[in-house]
């Protein structure tokens, strides 16, 4: 277990390093420096600016300076607003984190319930309805779902107010973020639950007269959870990228919409900072879910 953990952590660190590398050199490859505008500043001013942002040094050295700054939590300054990117990230991330966290909880909770229901009532009408709906939801991109929900519930029916800073209603954004992973988790839980229910130890437990709910919760569900745990990493990644569009649709000022605004403004330091921040978060979540998976499943060998 220790050897495996160390191996995975090293891989995660290498991955984050490579992400920083790709991001940095990709941004550097864009023609024209950040100060190359139509109205070029005077040569002296330009030199001072370049010195301030270390642009006069060789690219390799710039990269390590940038890496050092990253480690100290300094992501640079936005070209558009002139604010520290780290402040923007940490301010807006709290909104995104709340939104994403709620979506994760909702999708896991509902997905597990629906998936187990479908497995336990196999080939009866609840199973058919659940599978029909999940098949449908897996085919709807989150931005379309978000827009449709907004259209139906806010404009046509008027039940839910549109998001604003004064009235922070997260219901629709959370639903539109959670529906796709929920459908996926439902299908995952159903197949792993069916797998577990066919095992000998379930029959043994039933034969010994263990109550039905005990069999389901203590023996079946706990084992059926294992494949779902591996999905938590990809789930967070999905929710984070999904929140890019969902936040834009609902005009929520979270990290996702800041990122999309950064892309539209071609605000490179902002894109860079956000990419590295989100990517690191995703890598950490994947690492955590992998380690958790190995920890709960005794059948897995640690090679």
């Amino acid at each position, binding site marked *: 277990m220790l050897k495996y953990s160390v191996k995975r952590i090293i891989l995660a660190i290498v991955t984050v390093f490579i992400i920083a590398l790709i991001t940095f050199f990709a941004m550097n490859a*864009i023609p024209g420096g950040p100060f190359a505008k139509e109205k070029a500043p005077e040569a002296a001013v330009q030199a001072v600016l370049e010195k301030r942002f270390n642009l006069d040094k060789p690219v390799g050295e710039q990269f390590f300076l940038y890496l050092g700054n990253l480690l100290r939590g300094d992501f640079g300054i936005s070209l558009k607003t002139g604010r520290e990117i780290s402040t923007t990230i940490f301010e807006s991330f709290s909104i995104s984190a709340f939104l994403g966290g709620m979506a994760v909880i909702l999708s896991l909770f509902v997905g597990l319930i629906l998936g187990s229901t479908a497995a336990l009532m196999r080939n009866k009408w609840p199973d058919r309805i659940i599978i029909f709906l999940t098949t449908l939801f897996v085919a709807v991109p989150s931005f379309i779902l978000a827009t449709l929900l907004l259209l139906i519930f806010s404009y046509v029916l008027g039940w839910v107010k549109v998001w604003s800073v004064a009235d922070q209603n997260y219901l629709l954004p959370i639903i539109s973020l959670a529906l796709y992973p929920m459908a996926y988790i439902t299908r995952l839980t159903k197949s792993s639950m069916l797998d577990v229910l066919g095992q000998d130890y379930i029959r043994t437990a039933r034969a010994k007269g263990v109550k039905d709910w005990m069999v389901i919760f203590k023996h079946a569900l706990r084992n059926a959870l294992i494949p779902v745990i591996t999905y938590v990493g990809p789930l967070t990644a999905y929710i984070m990228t999904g929140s890019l569009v969902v936040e834009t649709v609902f005009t929520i000022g979270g990290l996702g919409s800041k990122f999309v605004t950064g892309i539209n403004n071609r605000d490179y330091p902002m894109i860079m900072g956000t990419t590295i921040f989100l990517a690191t978060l*995703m890598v950490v979540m994947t690492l955590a879910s992998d380690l958790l998976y190995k920890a709960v499943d005794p059948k897995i060998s640690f090679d």
Partner: protein
Amino acid sequence: MSSYNPSVPPEKKPFSLQLDPRMFEPATAEEKEQHDVMRESTTFFKDGLRRLFKNPLAVLSLVILGVLVAVILIAPLIVPYGYSQIITVNGKRDRTAANMRPLTYSTLEQEAIEAGQYVFPHIFGTDEIGRDYFIRVIYGARVSLMVGLFASLIVLIIGLLYGSVSGYVGGKTDIVMMRVVDIIYSLPDTLMVILLSVVLGQILGDSLQGTVFAALGNNMISMFVVFGLLYWVGMARLVRGQILQIKNNEYVLAARALGAGPGRIIRKHILPNCISVIFISTALQVPNAIFVESFLSFIGLGVQAPMPSLGSLANLARSALQIYPYKMLFPALGICLIVLSFNLLGDGLRDAFDPKLRR
């Protein structure tokens, strides 16, 4: 010695070790009939197809995709509008033709109809600068489908080559190649797609001008590049796993003993045995690519401006959502229908062709 009579078994010679021929009876006519081949022998492929056509959902999705492809191919021949063409009446730009509802005509067009001219109806209405929306949705679906298929093809080719080499050669090569895959696999793909799209779009600049790729635009090319760079790893892992499994079979050993080279073994013995799994995975890659394309178009990194894609149409429709909700509906339905059909078809193919799922 008497002449040979096949219906009477010969006598057993005393003291010989031979089995007594009288223990064996000739087969009766009924027994012989049982050995007749009742049906034509079936191949793996035919059997899979038969199973596929027994699955109503898979057949339905095949029909939907077939109809969709037919409409996409035929509609531009029938509808007299182009996807970037602003509607004109008698050579004059029709300013009243913007933002029309489905199946309505503008004032100028109505005058033309009253004058006895034929005006092709605007099935989905027109967009905000007066382009026929139906043909834009059709072209959008065409672009989205093309992107999905082409991106899956790129993934298939790269993943197949990389995975087969890694799995077949094995040893240190395999370890190194799989470490590379591990690292690429753990990169957050959507973020990298966004990043590389932004960057490649800038780097490519005007260099595509005048080539066949110009119509697609920098963003689409960057998306294909990104698929070529990042998305093949899943396929490579799958192919490698399959090859590792198959390579230890006896028939591969026999082929090697008979002097077959690695290329021949991969092509003739290994690939035919894992092709169905790979094919299914490719079919399931198509909706994934369409999702990514629509996502990128939605955040403004998709196809170049006059060229529509379903994602960019949906994005444009968002700004006037309250007034023209149907403009959102058509591209949204298009994406969902395509993705749903490919998902169901992929599931059907898997059930039909994956030998491990057979019961």
